[in-house]
């Protein structure tokens, strides 16, 4: 799929929780062609002294209406500036970029883990897995109850609640969601119905631990690696990830990598 630089229009941009926002943009080319796990590289208007684009995963898309959603967290200048963008504002996206999630062919049971805003980049994967009749377990982690902003969409998709953990115990399991992951893996093994695919997106320590657990359980695992990016299209080598095959660009050789290939920091 060829990359495009699409001049898009903000459809809506609403706050979901402290520092968490959902932006919907009209961007038909990208909406049409983006695959689960791919991302867009956004030029945020009006921050002329900050020259670089910002990469964001696509949370969901509506190919017919030509829109896609980005779930974003305010962490710095660019994401703060995004909160000011009203419906009708213009912005540019390069996309669709990167490797999509690739469940092994013949996957029957999959475990999908999203930590923090990492819940967004795995949502389209879950849609895809369900459409392929895969038996799906979803684990979501967040710092606190209010930050579990993707839960309702997952509920609607799954027909039941995803398994949730909050660091502060205000919802679901108290503590990190890795304990839920461990239980899921063990439970499946005990039931003689092991997972054949784990996908995880979230903070790097979370991904490292889940990758380890999956390896121990002998389940194929993919992770989505974030790096600071300049070009976002594979040209500048800003964004490399250490892998057993050497340094690989997270923008186009990833962001989705086979977890066994990643050399964790």
């Amino acid at each position, binding site marked *: 799929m*060829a*990359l*495009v*630089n*699409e*001049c*898009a*229009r903000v459809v809506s941009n609403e706050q979901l929780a402290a520092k968490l926002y959902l932006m919907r943009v*009209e*961007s*038909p*080319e990208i909406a049409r062609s983006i695959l689960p796990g791919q991302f867009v590289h956004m*030029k945020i208007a009006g921050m*002329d*002294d*900050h*020259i*670089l*684009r910002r990469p964001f995963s696509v949370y969901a898309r509506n190919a017919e209406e*030509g829109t896609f959603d980005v779930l974003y967290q305010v962490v710095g200048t660019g994401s703060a500036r995004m909160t000011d963008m009203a419906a009708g504002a213009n912005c540019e996206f*390069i996309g669709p970029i990167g490797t999509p999630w690739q469940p092994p062919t013949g996957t029957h049971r999959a475990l999908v883990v999203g930590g923090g805003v990492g819940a967004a980049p795995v949502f389209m994967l879950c849609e895809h897995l369900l459409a392929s009749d895969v038996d799906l377990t979803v684990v979501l982690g967040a710092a606190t109850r209010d930050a579990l902003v993707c839960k309702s969409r997952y509920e609607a998709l799954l027909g039941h609640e995803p398994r949730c953990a909050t660091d502060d115990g205000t919802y679901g399991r108290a503590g990190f969601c890795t304990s839920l992951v461990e239980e899921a893996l063990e439970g499946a093994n005990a039931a003689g119905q092991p997972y054949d695919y784990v996908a995880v997106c979230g903070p790097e320590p979370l991904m490292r631990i889940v990758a380890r657990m999956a390896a121990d359980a002998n389940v194929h695992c993919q992770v989505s690696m974030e*790096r*600071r*990016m*300049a*070009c*976002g*299209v*594979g*040209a*500048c*080598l*800003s*964004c*490399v*990830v*250490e892998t057993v095959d*050497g*340094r690989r660009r997270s923008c*186009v050789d990833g962001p989705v990598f086979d977890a066994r290939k990643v050399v964790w920091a």
Partner: protein
Amino acid sequence: MTCNFQRKPRATSVRMSVNVGGLEMKNPVTVASGTFAAGREYHDFVDVSTLGAVTTKGVSLHGWEGNASPRIAETPSGMLNSIGLQNPGVAHLKEHDLPWLSQVGATVIANVSGHSFDEYVAVIEALEGAPVDAYEVNISCPNVDAGGMTIGTDPKSVEAVVSRCRAATKRPLIVKLTPNVTNIAEIAVAAEASGADAISLINTLLGMAIDAHTRKPLLARVVGGLSGPCVKPVALRLVWECSKAVRVPLIGMGGISTGTDAVEFMLAGATAVSVGTANFVNPAATIDVIDGIATYCEDNGVKDVTELIGALEC
């Protein structure tokens, strides 16, 4: 909601071609090495055969793995990078990139790196049979410990490496200078005297960024090279100083994002220009720069773009 696919420069009555020390370019715009890979990554946005030339990422003999991450940081109107010339080696360039560039019909400047004088020569020798239109010898990379910038700051070592490269090829030889020197004219004169057909500048300014919160540098390698609009005033000054010091043509770069920026460099004495960091912001920046130069010429009655070279009034 508009997308442009594989843009090409628009038609113009302005004569746009330039000759850079024997290298024929269909227009004065190439890309800054390391910001455009070998063109393929930008071919969805820009028909790379329509550029004055594609300058490839720096290549060494057997390849280098570059520096640790993080490798970039954003700074006011610019960025720092410490890629460290990661590259898969000259054989890979010959096998994978040059055939593709040749097939799409691109003019090619191969940017050459080395840890030693011998390595520079070996890379050129390896490329002599390959479809390359000119060499750009990078003696100015601030991100490697041996070779790179250390060679480019001393007229003696500049002479040594340039004359050896000169002996290795009859193709146009461009020497790329670092701005991190007291006296650029002295370095440029040394390069010219040793056989350079053209000089390109600037490579990045050495800089550093710190995260006050973590008390750590933002780059794993601590220091890196500054590029983007913030360096434009320094780059223009160095191009102007060089243009007064040497007769060989110059390729100017440093923060060029628009046609007007490019015109400024040409007025200061550059025969051609390179677009670097701007590609990251606007993947079709090269075409916008070419079109912008044409518009400037049309609006100002300039029939041949070469009329701009060194036309600064001061």
